């Protein structure tokens, strides 16, 4: 299998889907001529032309809304927000339109739109540019939320997302665009709603996703040296949650740590934990632990930023206190 960077895996998914289906098109700020501020859309303008790879003004509300309208009209828009921070300007369209249109119109229409956007902190971009909003999007019925952590899943989930009939928040991560991994060629489709047991283990389950998944994996490797066997679950789909996989693992290891780079209070981690408690309470040998970012707007200073974010050592620390 060829090795590809995460950004190139996404690029391949876009290219394949645009080739397969003439209704698929891309729109967003600087996605065409500039080839994307993270270069995910590199080469697509020259391959597919300006009709299908469309630069927009800096106007997130109409980027979202026009994509939704185009989806209602039968096209397959893939709209990019340059970063997740700017979805705050499009929240009304995402939450009050995309997520609700199908239901409130009695199922008489679907909204097959994909909103791609990178999240991520740790690059000293300051408070307004360092947010993770998955916990919000998961608190919104009608949306599907995906957050791949590997190049293969990035490709496979994006292809599935584009073919799906539902509005989808596709959360990439600016810290992952450069990571490499094997990526199946052509028809590689990863189903929505299936978590991946990325590493098997017996002593503790580490549940994570996106960039935090790599912290968890690293922690598992280091824990292995202490003979602690950690199972690592990469959620991939954040909404709806693959509780079956989560439960199975929790029932096996009896200990769970959830790792997320989003703020602690109100983090999706609490939802996952509660669902585990609600279903396999008696199987747990210790209270579930959450390793998250601190409840603080992200500081610019390198040292402070590192303190605000969860680190591999924090994951290891949490596990050590449990086993």
């Amino acid at each position, binding site marked *: 299998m060829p090795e590809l960077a995460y950004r190139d895996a996404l690029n391949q998914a876009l290219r394949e889907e645009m080739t397969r289906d003439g209704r698929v098109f891309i729109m967003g700020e600087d996605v065409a001529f500039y080839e994307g501020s993270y270069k995910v859309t590199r080469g697509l303008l020259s391959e597919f032309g300006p009709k299908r790879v469309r630069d927009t003004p800096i106007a997130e509300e109409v980027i979202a809304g026009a994509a939704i309208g185009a989806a209602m009209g039968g096209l397959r828009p893939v709209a990019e927000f340059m970063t997740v921070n700017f979805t705050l300007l499009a929240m009304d369209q995402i939450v009050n339109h995309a997520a609700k249109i199908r239901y409130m119109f009695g199922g*008489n229409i679907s909204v097959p739109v994909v909103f791609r956007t990178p999240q991520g902190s740790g690059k000293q971009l300051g408070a307004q540019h360092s947010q993770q909003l998955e916990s919000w999007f998961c608190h919104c019925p009608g949306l599907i939320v995906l957050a791949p952590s590997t190049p293969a899943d990035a490709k496979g989930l994006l292809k599935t997302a584009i073919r799906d009939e539902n509005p989808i928040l596709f959360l990439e991560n600016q810290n992952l665009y450069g990571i490499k991994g094997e990526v199946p060629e052509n028809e590689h489709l990863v189903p929505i709603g299936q978590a991946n047991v990325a590493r098997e283990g017996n002593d503790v389950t580490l549940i994570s996703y996106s960039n935090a998944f790599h912290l968890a994996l690293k922690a598992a490797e280091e824990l292995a040296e202490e003979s602690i066997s950690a199972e690592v679950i990469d959620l991939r789909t954040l909404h709806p949650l693959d509780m079956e996989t989560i439960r199975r693992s929790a029932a096996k290891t009896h200990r769970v740590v959830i790792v997320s780079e989003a703020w602690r209070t109100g983090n999706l981690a609490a939802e996952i934990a509660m669902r585990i408690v609600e279903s396999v309470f008696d199987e747990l040998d210790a209270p579930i632990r959450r390793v998250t970012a601190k409840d603080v707007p992200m500081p610019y200073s390198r040292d402070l930023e590192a303190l605000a974010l969860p680190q591999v050592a924090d994951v290891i620390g949490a596990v050590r206190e449990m086993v």
Partner: protein
Amino acid sequence: MKLTAQYTGTQLLQMYRQMLLIRVFEEKVAEMYTKGHISGFSHLYIGQEAVAVGVASALAGTDYMITAYREHGQAIAKGCDPKEVMAELFGKATGLCGGKGGSMHLFDLEKRFMGGFAIVAGQMPLAVGLGLCASYREEDTVVACLFGDGAVNEGAFHESLNLASLWNLPVIFICENNLYGMGTAVHRATALTHIAGHACAYGIPGLQTDGMDVLAVHETVSRLARNVRDGQGPVLVEALTYRFRGHSMADPLKYRTPQEEEIWKRRDPIPALAEMMSREGLVRSDALTETRQSVEQEVAAAIAFAEESPVPPEQQLMQDIYVPTQFMDSTGALHHQPMSISVDHAPEPEQALARRGETEGRE
């Protein structure tokens, strides 16, 4: 100019009937609301009928209409069945949206009535997207996007007009300037009160039309629709009109004077058209009477239909949240076995299916 030069009696009578149908329908809605058959918000269109009918009569059946929450009359003008509209207001399973939408969220894909939306200006970006579909597929469809004077102040208005102009999309933006957004008069909300004049900021034509005159609206929109269909890009139309009732059923209407209301009510578009037609001998007076009778019957039938229809069954609650995917059902619940509807063959919106051949053929 003589009406006969431009319209047949049948055409005019049809417009008259549509306006009257909306009027009588809305009056019944008010009654049903008071009786408790209809709940939530209910924003009546009474007084503004000439706009919806003037616009809809200038559009083709394949053209889109998309609008806000004051949309019962617009839906009817675009061809939705009053029975299904009324049933929706009653929250019944036979309503346009199966009772899930209600007064502010009527929708009829077949009639290309793309929805009532309850967030001021929220429909405007969607209209741009619908326009993009037409442009993308090189269809000669146009999109009529209706909104109120209050919407002009929202950022979405600005972003939408700019993008539609930049991309040269076939969207007719129609502002129904009824002089108030709730209790706020236009001049207290919009620095440039001449709404059509806002077109200057987008390099597109901006025209005012008399929203109390169905023929004026019809003619303005017909002419512009031709240009828009020709690929000349979007336009902004301001239809000056007035809502005879309050903003919603609860509005005590303290912010307008009775004098002002009187002036506008004298311009009621329905008797005005009747008078014009009579004056020019285009209809017999008993045709008007017959029209009223048939309209009243139609509305009575709509009420009866709504009353007799069942409420949505309990299991409807969690249906239609999602289109099923390979492992997820329409409630969002996950399943272990792939479901019969697989991702690849997911059902598609009717219009997408219908046009698929076309699109593929062209590309």
